[in-house]
């Protein structure tokens, strides 16, 4: 059964003459437990789809349903935040500069209505491979990879079923990227998460995802299995060119 259903999704910014259509008539479904990739060049609208799902992009039309329940407008209810969480692209921008790791996770847990916050913060830090000694540090006392681990811990705090990953490794060093990707794979196995992963890095998507959608200029041009990606059997000329361009050696 499908966990996330996107049908004929349009997202736009601005009105009238200033209107920019960021996503045009995109449709795809993600099954429970699946890892789905959205690839495309910068500005192809892949991140915008995630922002529309989470209600951060207000203007959209079409149908988005989570586990069978349709969403509308930009308002999301508490059960949505319990089901869907997002990891942002830049860990340097997604953590409050004046909040310690403990405050970030503690507040998130409080918002999700948990009581045993102390124990859960320790558990979360442990789950993402950060020890308790990082607990009372400020973001500026952490490296990029450590910050992204905190951001992942925050996304996992509410025990969601779906994790939206907005280029979670593109702001990190190559060596750290692999660590974060492995962490995400492990967490997905441990918690049976459904992933929707945005990336412009086909190697990352090929490693992480079961299926992927190729986007160009706001449109989904092709949806393929990861085997097709690995065997270079893309049908659409754009996705074929994209695959061709990404093969280095």
């Amino acid at each position: 059964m499908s966990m996330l259903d996107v049908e004929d999704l349009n997202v736009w910014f601005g009105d009238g003459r200033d209107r920019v259509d960021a996503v045009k008539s995109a449709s795809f479904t993600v099954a429970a437990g699946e890892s789905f990739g959205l690839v495309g060049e910068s500005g192809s609208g892949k991140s915008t789809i995630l922002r529309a799902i989470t209600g951060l992009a207000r203007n959209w039309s079409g149908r988005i349903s989570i586990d069978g329940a349709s969403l509308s407008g930009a308002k999301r209810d508490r059960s949505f935040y319990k089901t869907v969480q997002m990891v942002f692209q830049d860990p340097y921008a997604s953590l409050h500069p004046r909040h310690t790791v403990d405050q970030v996770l503690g507040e998130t847990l409080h918002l999700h209505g948990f009581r045993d916050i102390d124990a859960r913060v320790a558990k979360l830090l442990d789950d993402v491979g950060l020890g308790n000694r990082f607990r009372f540090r400020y973001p500026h006392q952490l490296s990029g990879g450590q910050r992204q681990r905190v951001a992942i811990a925050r996304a996992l705090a509410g025990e969601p079923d779906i994790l939206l990953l907005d280029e979670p490794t593109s702001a990190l060093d190559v060596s750290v990227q692999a660590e974060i990707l492995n962490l995400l794979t492990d967490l997905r196995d441990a918690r049976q998460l459904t992933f929707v992963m945005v990336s412009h890095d086909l190697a990352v998507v090929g490693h992480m995802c079961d299926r992927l959608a190729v986007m160009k200029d706001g449109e989904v041009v092709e949806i393929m299995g990861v085997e097709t990606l690995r065997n270079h059997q893309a049908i659409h000329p754009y996705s074929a060119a994209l695959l061709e361009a990404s093969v280095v050696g």
Partner: protein
Amino acid sequence: MSGSQTLRGWLLTDAPTSRRHARLASLYKGWLSLRSNTMAMFGLGILVLLLLTAAFAPVLAPYSWLAQDLGNRLQPLGTEGHLLGTDSLGRDILSRLIYGSRITLYIVALVALIAPIVGLLVGTVAGYAGGWVDVVLMRTTDIFLAFPRLVLALAFVAALGAGIENAVLAISLTAWPPYARIARAETLTIRSSDYIAAIRLQGAGPLRIITKHIWPLCISSLIVRVTLDMAGIILAAAGLGFLGLGAQPPSPEWGAMISEGRRFILDHWWVATMPGLAIFTVSLAFNLLGDGLRDLLDPKDGGQ
């Protein structure tokens, strides 16, 4: 020695072990960087002296601020028993300055509490809510900003009646718009950042986002602005006192003292000059401290 070394190490650790430890460590690091700024420490020193003077005024002052001695009026500096001379009613100027520091602190503290808080509320709500709330709040702010500050304060005092409390109220009412502007500008940049989006995705409401996530980032720039404004506030209070609309005689408010001394300024210059020097010193101290705090608290440095 080793005890203080370990305390220092404990405070400078980059892996704090508890919430209290983390807070103390970041305070201590701020203090260290403030301490390395000589001018700011100079300003802070003067302000601490002012606080102590105000607290121990009855002990420090050689005479009562009310004690008149008409046979001994308008004595120059360094007269036996009157270090800074006496005024037109033979009152010891030094004693009056010492007692006057209480009034100065009182005015400064009240204005510093009212104006930035009103400004912060108006600015962050306008910036976060946007739309018509923003328009209504910011145009109101513009109207207040369009008036010359002292003239508006004069109008308020004239309407409310002369006196220190009303002077404070009038100054606060004219001082909040710049704070609202700053707070709104900060809010506009903060509200679109990823960490605000992230906490919204956890289901946080606007009230929590404004008070717990936006305020902490606005407050540092407001604190800096307050300390830089302090000189202006003291001068506005002194100005109202000078015009006879602030503190009333025989209150030893510094501006009122200058106003009284004005009549003798050609023959007995110290009567007006001494309270003027006091205002100058305290204003300077606030400016120096404000400059140091700006270096310390600027959120663009990320508190490093």
